[in-house]
């Protein structure tokens, strides 16, 4: 096929006008006699038109909003720097090694700053920055972005106002394609459980036991709404981050 048809990249370059005159002439000659390539170029042109007329104007504000939100997040992490974040992680790891297993209380040194969770909310065409205390509604769509200083996977779980524990992402490998942070694939849609909900990101290098995580979340739920609002960390020796929001059922 590669000898007889235009590649998708060639068509893209052609649409962008970044081919030489000679290439353009060859392409035009080919397209005159090749029905599949002609159809492919037409489809690409239609898609291009649709993007410029509808998708671009509609999504540019959302893209800019996500960038501003991500920038705020990076600014928060920025002063720590990757090296110091790794240092904090090393300190946490050292502490975990030093603390006997029977100690289940929170470690003295918090891992704050060594792992981060950012939640992007979407309500129709609006993109919302979900920070602690944000007010969300049933039906809002949430996506998660995480930053780990070195752990290879993250588990995302939550406990809601009904006291229900959910694991949205079991230990999920983090992308390593050049970025320091990863936006997790897929999204969740909020249900109508009232009151606060806290979402935890637990970073690790191994698959975490879901039943064990749920047990920890159940313990938070047992403390009621105030515990959900105030428990920023689960009592497990892992790098973690969390965000809580309130659900507004009145609209």
């Amino acid at each position: 096929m590669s000898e007889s048809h235009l590649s998708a990249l060639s068509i893209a370059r052609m649409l962008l006008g970044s081919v030489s005159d000679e290439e353009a002439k060859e392409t035009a000659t080919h397209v005159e006699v090749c029905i599949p390539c002609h159809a492919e170029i037409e489809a690409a042109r239609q898609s291009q038109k649709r993007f410029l007329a509808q998708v671009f104007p509609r999504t540019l504000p959302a893209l800019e909003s996500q960038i501003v939100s991500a920038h705020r997040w990076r600014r928060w992490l920025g002063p720590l720097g990757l090296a110091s974040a790794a240092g904090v992680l090393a300190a946490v790891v050292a502490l975990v090694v030093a603390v006997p297993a029977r100690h289940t209380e929170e470690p003295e040194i918090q891992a704050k700053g060594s792992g981060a969770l950012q939640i992007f909310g979407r309500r129709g065409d609006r993109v919302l920055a979900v920070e602690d205390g944000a007010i969300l509604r049933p039906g809002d769509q949430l996506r998660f972005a995480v930053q780990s200083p070195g752990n290879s996977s993250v588990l995302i779980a939550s406990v809601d106002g009904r006291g229900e524990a959910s694991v949205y992402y079991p230990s999920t490998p983090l992308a390593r394609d050049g970025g320091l942070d990863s936006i997790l694939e897929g999204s969740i849609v909020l249900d109508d459980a009232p009151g606060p909900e806290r979402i935890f990101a637990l970073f690790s290098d191994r698959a975490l036991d879901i039943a064990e995580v749920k047990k920890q979340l159940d313990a938070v739920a047992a403390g009621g709404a105030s515990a959900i609002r105030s428990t920023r960390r689960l009592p497990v020796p892992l790098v973690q981050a969390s965000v809580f929001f309130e659900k507004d059922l009145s609209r």
Partner: protein
Amino acid sequence: MYPNVTEDRLTALYRDYGPVIYWRCLKLLRDEAAAEDMTQETFLRVHRHLDKAPDAEEALRWIWRIATNRCLNEVRNRKRRPDLHEELPEVPVDCPLEQVLADRDLAQKIIERVDEKLRVVAWVHHVDGLEHVEAARLLGISRRTVANRLAAFHAQARKIIGRLS
């Protein structure tokens, strides 16, 4: 805030390359809403590495590569969901491999079932129709690596087709 020049550059990249990247995502994902989301995600990633963004034609290859990788990951994730699992058609046992892979739809379905490492190379060669040298340039790997991965892909494809026949 970041310098305006950076924001302006991202907006310009989104306007200039967004249409072809959207088309790329649409072709790979076959779903308009998913293609919109993936185009935005691609440019979010572009924004994070804007300082490394090459100029002109290399910029297209760079963004194209990011979009391709992300879309193929999405396709892989969909395949993990059993309700979206598509059956492969039967292929005659004596049909030469090149002839089987010349059917781009069938090639796509076979590619979605092979090892991740081989998937992108197989896709850009057999579905997109890039020659070895172009594939190597797009993916930032050597021609030898392209050839080796395609050979490994062909071996896996033969096994998959063998199971169907």
